[in-house]
């Protein structure tokens, strides 16, 4: 095959390149998304069949959930605190500062809790999954699992998937709860809101829907983090550098999926 003459490239319309690039990006994205879905289906199927790996699942829950508690506490607390400051100054303009407790609680439960927890945990646990499975892949440990007639999806992905789906709602709830504590502390001690009004306002404002939509989102984000982390691990190639690459990709891709699905879920659940 002879390469096309260079003039052919030059004569293409000016816009062809960016459009082409965008098209390629989109097809890549879609095929990548499809591959993740495939892994998700295999994982779901494998969840229903023995062996059930209870010890491994508990271990993953510890890594995914328990070890994320400190960072969730700190970020949640400060998020709540800053929300109190911001909301207070805006609401004061139309004398609605007594409402801030409720508004902040709903914001945390519906949006910031699941989304920020998802992004933080994607950086912590999602990257760790990609690194661990990726290292196993480049050192032939995945091949060894196959040779020992053990399904890598069952052995590696299922425990991480279960840990992700169960722990994310818990972490997100913790984030929202500590966020509310943070906003309460700042509102009462710094901004001088009446504590009783704050609390009463808040309880009056929150509805069951706020809580369960947040939990559903967190659950879905848990699925995204564990599947993306595992998938990137499985496609890792080429030594330490490859592992580094998949780790980064896992975080970027999981965060992107989280934000996209956050929009879709919000639109659906509203």
């Amino acid at each position, binding site marked *: 095959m002879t390469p096309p003459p260079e003039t052919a490239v030059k004569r293409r319309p000016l816009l062809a390149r960016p459009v082409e690039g965008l098209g390629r990006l989109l097809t890549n994205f879609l095929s990548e998304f499809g591959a993740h879905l495939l892994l998700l289906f295999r994982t779901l199927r494998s969840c229903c069949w023995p062996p059930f790996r209870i010890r491994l699942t508990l271990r993953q829950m510890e890594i995914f959930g328990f070890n994320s508690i400190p960072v969730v506490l700190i970020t949640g607390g400060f998020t709540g605190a800053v929300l109190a400051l911001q909301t207070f100054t805006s609401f004061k303009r139309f004398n609605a500062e007594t409402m801030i407790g409720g508004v902040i609680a709903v914001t945390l439960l519906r949006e910031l809790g699941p989304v920020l927890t998802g992004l933080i945990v994607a950086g912590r646990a999602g990257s760790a999954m990609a690194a661990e499975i990726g290292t196993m892949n480049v050192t*032939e440990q995945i*091949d*060894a699992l*196959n*040779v*020992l007639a*053990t399904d890598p999806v069952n052995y590696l992905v299922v425990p991480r998937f279960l840990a992700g789906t169960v722990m994310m709602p818990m972490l997100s709830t913790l984030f929202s709860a500590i966020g509310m504590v943070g906003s309460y502390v700042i509102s009462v001690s710094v901004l001088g809101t009446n504590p009783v009004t704050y609390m009463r306002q808040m309880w009056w404002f929150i509805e069951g829907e706020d809580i369960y939509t947040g939990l559903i989102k967190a659950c879905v984000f848990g699925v995204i983090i564990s599947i993306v982390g595992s998938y990137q691990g499985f496609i890792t190639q080429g030594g330490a550098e490859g592992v580094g690459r998949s780790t980064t990709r896992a975080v970027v891709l999981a965060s992107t999926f989280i934000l996209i699905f956050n929009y879709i879920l919000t639109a659906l659940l509203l």
Partner: protein
Amino acid sequence: MAVGITITDLHKSFGANHVLRGVDLSVEQGESLVVIGGSGSGKSVLIKHIIGLLKPDRGSIEVNGQEVTTMAERELKELRKKFGMLFQAAALFDSLTVGENVAFPLVEHTRARRSEIAERVRETLTLVGLPDTEHLYPAELSGGMKKRVGLARALAMEPEVILYDEPTTGLDPIMADAINDLIVEMRERLAITSIAITHDMVSAYKIGHRLAMLYQGEIIFTGTPQECKNTDDPMVRQFITGSSVGPITSV
């Protein structure tokens, strides 16, 4: 029941790198075949095809008359339970201890009690010259020790076929000879079918009923150790005598 393997016209490329170019090779039930060949000639790639880790571009591999290359994941899993494989770099699970590594197939595929498994692990580790190392992690082992733990893991289930990827590389001569003896013993006592890859000609002569040489993606020679020593094929001669002068150029 012992297992026979027949490979016909196996082709495999990685991109532009045409590694296997029509390999024909067969191993009888209970036979021990040694594959020799230069570094990068595709020996590891070849045995990964036998156990279904790699899919060929073309060609067939039959194990006891069953075609491996087109097997579904489920059948492949059943087949693999009959196999043991020692990886070139051991491929130990680094999050598990030596004991857990060796116990892995037993825990996964048998209903044996804990104490029975522990006993079997101890026996197997003693067999490869590493008694009382159960509690160590792979990161704490030398290269040769890892190799032997990998061997113990491959032997733990008493498989019907074993694929050894360079069982003696990285071992001192005395330990290498002990491992050779172990492989010969497995072959004699349990009538295991085996394929071993090696660069170590002492080992090759000792453990192989038959030797096959892979060169430029094809099997260019097969024969008994005696035939191999007496051959006048210039490439085989060059390889077994370890000479840089001859038809095989090193670069």
